[in-house]
Structure formats: C-alpha cells, structure tokens
C-alpha cells in the first residue's frame, strides 16, 4: 500500500487535458489520477479494482499510452493529455468498442472499460498482434467474470477491421 502523507502546504495548480478539455487541480498533488477522474471530475467510466496496478480496471491513455490511473499521481500528469473511456470515440464506435459488442464480451462489465482502453492502446501500437502478443499485453487486466476468450476474439476481430 502506498503510505505517503502530504501536509496541507501551499502548492501550484496542476493543469491537464482530459478528453480534449482543459482541467485544473489545486488539491493534493499526490492524489491519484483515478480518484481525481472519478470523484473530482465525475468521469466514472474509469474503474477502481485494486489501487496497486495489479488489475487494469483503471486503465486510461496518458499521451496515447495505456497507464494505470490508480498509481499515477496528479503531479505526474501535469500538462499531459489524458483520454478516458468516455473520450475514446465520440460515438462509442472505436473499432475495439464495436468488436466488443459484436462479440458480446461483457458479463458484469465492470472490468471492460479498462480492458477496452488497454486493447485500444495495443492496437494503436501493434495493429496486427499475434495471439501471444494479445495474451501478453492483456494479462495485466483481470476479469473476475472470466470473459477472456471473448476478449481475445474481440481484439482479433478489431484487428482485422470489423
């Protein structure tokens, strides 16, 4: 568990861009991006699963790269560009999202936004991943309901241009 404590000292305003909109934060700079997004901004599509970078539920894109919001401090993302599930595609029609729906991936659905953000980052970097590359990259994202086969199938589908 992280256990650093920050006093109520004077601090600078942190500015960042979230889904194309400028935001600023003058609270605790050690606050994690996860709770900032969820509780301060109200973007609840990014989920809490473990708080320790062990499950991937909180995956967002920071400067285009998949990142775990739960261990990303606000001070780490000053001036940076954040995309959350709400901003992945204006109509929710990113190829990964479409493939997810066509494959009926979700059960409870709670882990799925993190899975989708991770998969979207994977395909951006590697548009035609092998099955092993898919399994390797996605192994940071836990699904307790066990939708793994469909996650793999959906990523394959998205990669082949569904």
């Amino acid at each position, binding site marked *: *568990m992280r*256990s650093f404590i920050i006093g109520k000292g004077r601090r600078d305003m942190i500015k960042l861009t979230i889904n194309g909109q400028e935001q600023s934060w003058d609270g605790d700079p050690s606050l994690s991006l996860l709770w900032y997004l969820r509780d*301060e901004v109200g973007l609840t599509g990014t989920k809490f699963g473990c708080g320790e970078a062990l499950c991937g539920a909180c995956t967002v894109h920071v400067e285009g790269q998949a990142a775990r919001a739960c261990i990303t401090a606000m001070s780490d993302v000053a001036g940076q560009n954040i995309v959350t599930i709400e901003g992945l595609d204006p109509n929710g029609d990113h190829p990964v999202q479409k493939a997810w729906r066509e494959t009926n991936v979700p059960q409870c659905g709670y882990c799925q936004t993190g899975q989708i953000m991770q998969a979207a980052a994977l395909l951006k970097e590697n548009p035609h991943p092998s099955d092993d590359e898919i399994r*390797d990259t996605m192994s940071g994202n836990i699904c*307790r309901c066990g939708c793994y086969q469909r996650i793999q199938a*959906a990523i394959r589908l998205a990669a082949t241009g569904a």
Partner: protein
Amino acid sequence: MYQHIAPRIENVSRRAVLRGLGITAGLVLAAPVMSRRSIAAYATGAGNMPHGTVNDPRVFVAIAPDGIVTIIAHRAEMGTGVRTSLPMIVADEMDADWDRVRVRQAPGDEVKYGNQDTDGSRSTRHYLMPMRQIGAAARMMLEAAAATRWNVPVSEVKAVNHEVVHTGTGRKLGYGELAIDAAKQPVAAVADLRLKDPKDFRYIGKGRVSIVDLHDITTGKAMYGSDTRLPGLKYAVIARPPVVGGKLVSFDAEGALKVSGVEKVIEVQGWPWPSKFQPLGGVAVIARNTGAAIMGREALKIVWDDGPNANYDSVSYRAELEDAARKPGLVVRNNGDPEAALKSADKVVVGEYYIPHLAHVSMESPVATARVTGDKAEVWAPVQSAGGTREDVAKTLGIPIENVTINVTLLGGGFGRKSKCDFALEAVLISKAIGAPVKVQWTREDDIRHDFAHTVSVERIEAGLDKSGKVIAWRHRSVAPTIGSTFSAGATHELPFERGMGLVDLPFDIPNIRCENPEATAHTRIGWFRAVSNIPHAFAIQTMVAEIAQQTGRDPKEMLLELIGPARIVDVASSVKEPWNYGEPLDSYPIDAGRLRRVVELVAEKGNWGRSVPKGHGLGIAAHRSFVSYIATIVEVAVDDKGKLTIPRVDTAIDCGTFVNPERIQSQIEGAAIMGLSLAKYGELTFKNGRAVQGNFDDFPLVRIDEAPLVTNVYIVPAGPDVPPSGVGEPGVPPFAPALCNAIFAATGKRIRSLPIGKQLEGA
C-alpha cells in the same frame, strides 16, 4: 442443441435507458394495484421465498403512447444477463418488438415485485412462468382494447410484433395507440391466459439478443454501485477490526485529519459477532474524494481488542478439521450398513481432501452510497438482495420500511458477496452521523480481509470395493464451519442446505452409503460463495471417482457412469436427515440419474473423451448436479516440465431444463471455467493471529488471460419446454476443479488432494 462457436453480429446496439428514465407522459399499464400471486404450470419453491412471486402486468409493464414498452427488471444484474433475460420473456409473450423495449430496474420492494434475492441460481427457474404470464396478460389486454376499438370479437384480432391486427380486414393498431385503452382492460385470471406455443417464441431460447447494457458498458456509461454521484457527496473508507469479533478500543485521528482533503473522522457502530449482515464497526475517514479518505485512513492510529478469534490460524485449524474427519460425526444420511460393508470389503480406497477458504473478490469491491435525512433513507448500492437490504436498513436506523428506498445499480460482480448488505448499512450509519450523503468505498484489501469467506473444509471419503471392483460401501465425512455461524453463535454443523449441496444428495448407485458431518467451529464470518458447499463436496466426490477408477484400472468416465448407475429417480429423502432440494419440490425437480448420465455421455461424445493427447497432456472428467441442473465437464490440461499448466480445451455439457438465453448460458459456463481454474490454481484465503493474511491480487491471485483455457465448448441439452428451468449461474463452477485435477493426474501421475494446486506440480 445450441453450440456457439463463432461470434455473431447482433442487431441490438442501442443504449439502455437505465438512468434518468422517467416514463414520460401518457401511459399506461402501470397502475398502482395490489399484486397478484402467480400460479405456475409446474411447482417451484418460489412461493416459499420471502414475498413469493408477482405476475401482475400492471406492476411490470408500461406502454407509452409512442409505443415504447418499458419492462421492469426486479432481479439484480451481476453478470448473468438476468436484467435482459427476464424482460425478454415478457416481451416475447406479449409480442413486443425488442428494439422498442426499454428495461427499468426496480428498487427494493418485495411486496410489489415479489422476492428479489438474486442468488441460488433461482431467477429463471422461479420467474420464467410468472414472466410469461405477465407478457400473456399484457398481450391479451392490448388485444381486448383493439377489439373494443374496432367493435369486433376478440377472437378476430391478434397481436403481432408490437401491433394488433384485425385478421379479417388487415387493420392494425400499434401498441402505443392502444396503451391507454389497454390499461383499462381487466387482467385475465391465470387460468384464462393464452400462453404462446413455445414454437412461436422469437426471443426465448434463441440467444440472439445482446444484454441491454452492452453499449453502456463499452462506453463507460453503465452505472455500477461505485458510480453514484450526488450533490454534496462525501467519500468514506472505514478501518474495521482486523479480527472478526474484535472491537475498537481507542483511536487517534490527528494524523488523518492533517491529510489534504480529509474532513472528518468518526467511529462507526459495530455489532457483536455473530451479527448476520450488520457492520463490523470501526473508524470512518470522510473526505472530499476517495483517494484522500484512503490516505487519511493510513494515518490513523487505532487500538483494537481482537476478541475471541484472535488465535485463528489456518495451519492449526486444518489439523483440527482433519482430526475431526477421522472420527465419527453426526450421521446425516444412511443407507444399508456401511460400517459392516467397509469391514468386509476386499479393498478400501481412502481419500482425504482439503479445500481452503476463498474470498469472493468481485471486480467491483463492496461500495454503497446513502443519503439519510430525518427518518428517511435512500441508498444506491450493488446489492443482490434489494428487499433484504431495505428491511435491514429500516431495522438498523429504526425507521419504517416505507421510508427506505433502495436503488439497485449494476453489480460489478457479486458471487454471493453482495447478498450481504453490510456495506449499505455502513453507508446509512455514516450518512446519518455526518448529515450528508456519503459513499463508502471498500478497497481491495478491505474486500479480501473482511469478506464473508467461503468455508474451509476437509472431506474424507472411504469407498469399499468387493472382489470384482464394484463399490459396495461409501462413507463421506464433511467437516466445515457453517454459514449458520454467521447467524447464530455456536453453530457447528453444516445446515441442511449446505449438506444438500452435493453431500447427502449423492446420486450414486451404491447399496451402503453413510454421510457424516463432524463439528467445526467458525472463527471468521462464513458466507455463501458462488456454488457454495458444492465446491468442496464435488471436488472430493469427483476426485474419489477417479481415484477408484485408477485403483481398479478402469476408465474414469466408465467408472463415473457405473457409480451413477441406471437412469432412475434417486430417492434420498428417506435416508437423509432434513433433506434439501435447493428449495424445490421433488416432483418437479427430482434427482434424476438419467439426466446426470446424459450430460456425461454428451460431453464425452462432443468432447471426444478418450482421444489421444500429446505427451504431458491429460484429460479429466467430472459431473455434478447442483441448483437442480446437471453438468459435466472435461478438461484437457498440459503440464510442462516446470509444472506450468496450460488448458488447451474445456468441454462442458449442461442440462438446465427449459432455457431462455443460451448465449448467456454459454458465457456463464465460460466464466465458471475461469473461476474454477482460479480457485483450483490459486484460491486460498488464510488466517494468522485471527487476521486474513491476503489483501490484494498479488497475494490472492486470479487467473489472467494468458492462463485462461484456449477453447471452451458448451453444449446445452435441448430439454424441451416441458422440463422446468433450473440453475445456470452457479452449477458450472463445482465440476471444474475436480475435472482439472483428474486431468493433471492423467498428465503427470500426481494426484491433487489439497487445493489450491499452488506449487504442488513443481518438480512433479
């Protein structure tokens, strides 16, 4: 036979109307009425559940003048698809067009909607018929309204896809146009309902409808318990007594209050153990966001009194259970004279199995939001038990139940954990204390360390064989702390419902059977976990079958079929102390050895049992009846020279009677294989000095995608409309671990008798 392999393109990709759905002007069938009790064509145990079932269309269906049909989902959605499946039954019977149906989640109100406890794999089995009755009654009201409008006999009109058609003239009226008149029509008596011929079903049994929340889930708009936001909302986490039965002595909040964003630190009331679902108590840190509350909690200084369970230690407890399993215990089933038969047996095969505590770890840890004002309380929470939560909130706050509103959100997984509403009770207590709305968030560590743990058990089976290798005696001792201990102090025996989960309902054709249940004292909160006591019972029994096969040189599948014996209805009631059949009457839901044989034969055929596999691979099989369904699984495993497991293929056959949404049955079985693999490979919650040792996914690992089975095939027995529906959510779990471990034996010669597998295969 439904056999889903390729992903299909679904036509439903619209947003569900979960949030902010107010049924707009006009309408409607939804008049406030006294609920009607449903009468099903076949008997179920539904009537024995608190508040039974309701089948009034005016409670469940509303039609707006624009034709949008709103159907109430009154069970909790935790990933099974029930929020789609039950409304889909109504839509099918009323001939509504699914694209013009919206689903609205019912708040907790069992007087109005009937029982809402979403557990026990009961929703479809208890509600298929009431939902059909609701749909049929609504359809007949629409037809009657059209006939009146046209002034023709009702026999000349027919509902077809969201319209009523006059057969003679081809005139049509849409459901929207008929809504207001239809609402004035009387609701037909159950005996007068014209149910559809099942061959005319458009949605039921087809698997063509995606879950209603699919679009919202993939876009981050789906609202889980953790996603509730209210004006002025505060965020809280709680430091709870680390040992069950412990309590707070004192605390120092100074450090916590210095953390930026922390606003208050208060004591939360706890209840003496055992306390059912009441909170454990402790110290709450209230902040402007969850992150600040978590950091504040880390700065608390607390002195606890650990109480009577301070010495709970999983290592010594296991030895206690083993000791108990080696001595006679309470006889809970007896046929013939097993003691004599064991003595005279030519050979006795003995297996002693250990299945540890498990934590539920739903992906969304417990969380609840509450707003208490005066003598009113409103809660937003991912609860499996909306009705029970409402009662418990009312009791805890001492306010009338009518003053309590429970809004049921989506559940980010449940698995039985969210049947216990302690987290919602914490939220109302804190909201009341601080005079503001509050969200109580459990961290993963809170979830694992303060769970209602799945029991821990030692199962010992002795099977006596005659000279020909036939099993003539079976003695099974099951020792495990009971869920009853969460409700009453000093409960030491498994309750009838726990024993009825695979122990005493053994459907084997053996002349001498004895089941015993020696005592075990609980030292932590025990609760039901997906499939409950079926997990240890099935693990022991299905491993034992393979052990007997091994010792007698027979094929494990043939051994299993021999033990199940000929197709017949198995009568266990006469030999069992307090028999239990998942709450269902035996005449509709007998223990049918023929159906169990059939899933074994089906999976063996489809899964190509006995196929030759590469070196280092092995096949294992297991079958089990649970939640009145029948299921058999074959696992192919590959074990490399470092002991690393791969699962190239899983085949599962399920007979769950009449079924509604085969596509979701398949996803439940796929998921059950993953959960079964997780518990077999890693699942172990241990205690030391009274405290749970594990806390997050690093020390309580779950299976990840790179370890998941490569292929899972699901075969659903086409039972036909005359066979009552039975459970789906849970039955997939119990057979997986024994099938896997039997496969491991076939691959390596190493017999796993103690879960989890952990490092047992290293150097095997």
